[in-house]
């Protein structure tokens, strides 16, 4: 934005010829606008650096030796790339198994959330029956209540369940899947409900005339029509459940001898506590890197969908 290349620009410069008189912008045309443009870029760039620099710092620290982390904490360029930090975090830090657990749980829970959520939302949006409003408001009320309120009884309920049905007890994948589904239903139902409402009725009626059953109508006509909504809420649920930490911390504690079934966020908390004692800083950085890179990469690839998906979630 240097003024050299724009010799016309002076502080009191009249609007350059060619502009319509109506455009004597109050913010000042030429120099003012250019200054403002420069200022915008400067400020935006500063914020961009504030966002990227810490992330980059974590990734680069993950490639240093421990000695280097302590000696030259700020440098972004490791002397030699220490890939074995990742190996150590993956195996000894159990990030590998945490990852696998998270993927296993999410595969089940996101699918079930979407399926059950849209089923419930569809019925509530499209069919009139006694109790419809009641069930809808029951789902809605779950949006405002703080999760901490339910923590203690939820833990007790899951514990008691585990006594009779061990595969639904604490520290079990299937239990966590069901809990995730239940806790994601409120928003999913709320979101898909308003989505199904907006779909035209004519096609559904045509399907009915052709003799399709109610459930067939849902799976082969309405669900495909709701695809944009499903994508938004799907992204929302994947991120939300991937980032969930309170429910697993509450429900996935392994008692001595049991296999560690923790998910990634929980594993990171554990890693950050343990590495603090062992001073394995590079291992910790490697763990954080592995937890954030996959999500960031998926985001960068699908950024348009992710951005619109998440913001649509708020806009409703």
């Amino acid at each position: 934005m240097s003024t050299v290349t724009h010799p016309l620009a002076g502080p009191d410069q009249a609007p350059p010829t060619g502009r319509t008189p109506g455009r004597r912008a109050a913010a000042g045309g030429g120099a003012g606008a250019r200054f403002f443009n420069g200022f915008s870029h400067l400020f935006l760039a500063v914020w961009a650096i504030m966002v990227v620099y810490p992330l980059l710092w974590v990734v680069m620290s993950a490639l240093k030796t421990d000695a280097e982390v302590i000696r030259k904490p700020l440098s972004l360029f490791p002397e030699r790339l220490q890939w074995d930090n990742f190996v150590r975090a993956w195996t000894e830090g159990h990030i590998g198994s945490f990852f696998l657990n998270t993927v296993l749980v999410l595969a089940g829970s996101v699918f079930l959330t979407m399926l059950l959520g849209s089923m419930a939302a569809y019925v509530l949006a499209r069919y009139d029956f006694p109790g419809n409003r009641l069930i809808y408001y029951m789902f809605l009320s779950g949006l405002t209540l703080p999760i901490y309120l339910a923590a203690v009884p939820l833990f007790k309920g899951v514990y008691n369940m585990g006594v009779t049905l061990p595969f639904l007890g604490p520290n079990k994948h299937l239990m966590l899947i069901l809990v995730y589904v239940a806790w994601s239903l409120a928003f999913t139902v709320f979101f898909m409900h308003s989505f199904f409402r907006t779909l035209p009725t004519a096609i559904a009626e045509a399907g009915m005339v052709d003799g399709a059953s109610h459930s067939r109508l849902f799976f082969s006509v309405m669900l495909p029509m709701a695809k944009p909504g499903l994508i938004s809420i799907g992204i929302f649920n994947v991120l939300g459940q991937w980032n969930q930490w309170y429910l697993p911390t509450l429900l996935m504690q392994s008692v001595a001898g049991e296999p560690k079934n923790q998910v990634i966020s929980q594993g990171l908390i554990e890693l950050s506590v343990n590495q603090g004692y062992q001073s394995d800083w590079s291992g910790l950085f490697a763990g954080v890197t592995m937890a954030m890179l996959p999500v960031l990469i998926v985001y960068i690839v699908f950024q348009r969908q992710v951005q619109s998906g998440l913001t649509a979630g708020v806009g409703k």
Partner: protein
Amino acid sequence: MRHGVGRFVTGFLVLPVGLYLFYVVWPFLQAAGYSLTDWGGYSDRQQFVGLENYLRLFTDELIRKAFWHNVFFLVTVPLCTIALALFLAFLLNVGGREDKAGIRGVFGSGLYKVIFFFPQVLSLVVIAVMWQQIYRADGQGLVNGVLMKIGLVAEDDPITFMYDPEPFLGVPAVLWWLLLIAVWSGAGFYMVLFSAAMQSIPKDIYEAAILDGAGRFHTFFRITLPLLRDTVSVAWVYLGFIALDMFALVFIMTPSQGGPNHASEIFASVIHFNAFQKGQFGYACAIAVALAIFTILLAAFQLRITRRERIEF
């Protein structure tokens, strides 16, 4: 036919409603019940004590602290995040050059949007653990390291961040540092939200304004901002919930989960402290019910004051 519909509706609802009742509604109801007892959480002994737990709330020093800390976050988190997000969105959309087509967004606004959105896809845990390292109270931390290098902070007197209970403007310093993280992680998301809303405002409104001789500041404050009112108020409600839910940061980052010396206690951490460390489940449930009532009142209040006639376009 009628019969078929009934079967279909029941069939579709039974699983979701069942799961929801068992894992969400039932625990909530139980919590409300426990809040009237002196249950410790581990024993089977529990006695009905009526509203005693609720009366205790009003004399509990810790609750009072937590309440004011929550209020602090409730005011500052939405205010700072929305202000910064609006400012960024403004620069992004109005900061570019002017030409015949009107005022443009800055060059590279797409890239900025992608970058600013990064923290939104990171989990709170990743953010907390990362900032724990950034906020280290010695030269190994990112902030202290940088400030020491440029000589703003003495080597033997680093900023203590999470260990600093000293009040700044009447609020413990540790809360201000937590606020910074919340704003850092939220601003980008709301900027994208506001940006999208700004772009959905029809161009001809701007063209009319420009013909009338309005500059970019005028158009922003007189046209864009008023038309964004709906989006901003929705953002305010959401950020209110986020402000109540600062627990992940407090839990992971502060010493003894609410320290130092209870300087960063919030409702959620007090519930956790009472339930799992002091073994007073009944009392913890009473706090939680109070928090729930507080949340619902707040949501109703926010919806009430932000409601206004919509402008359709």
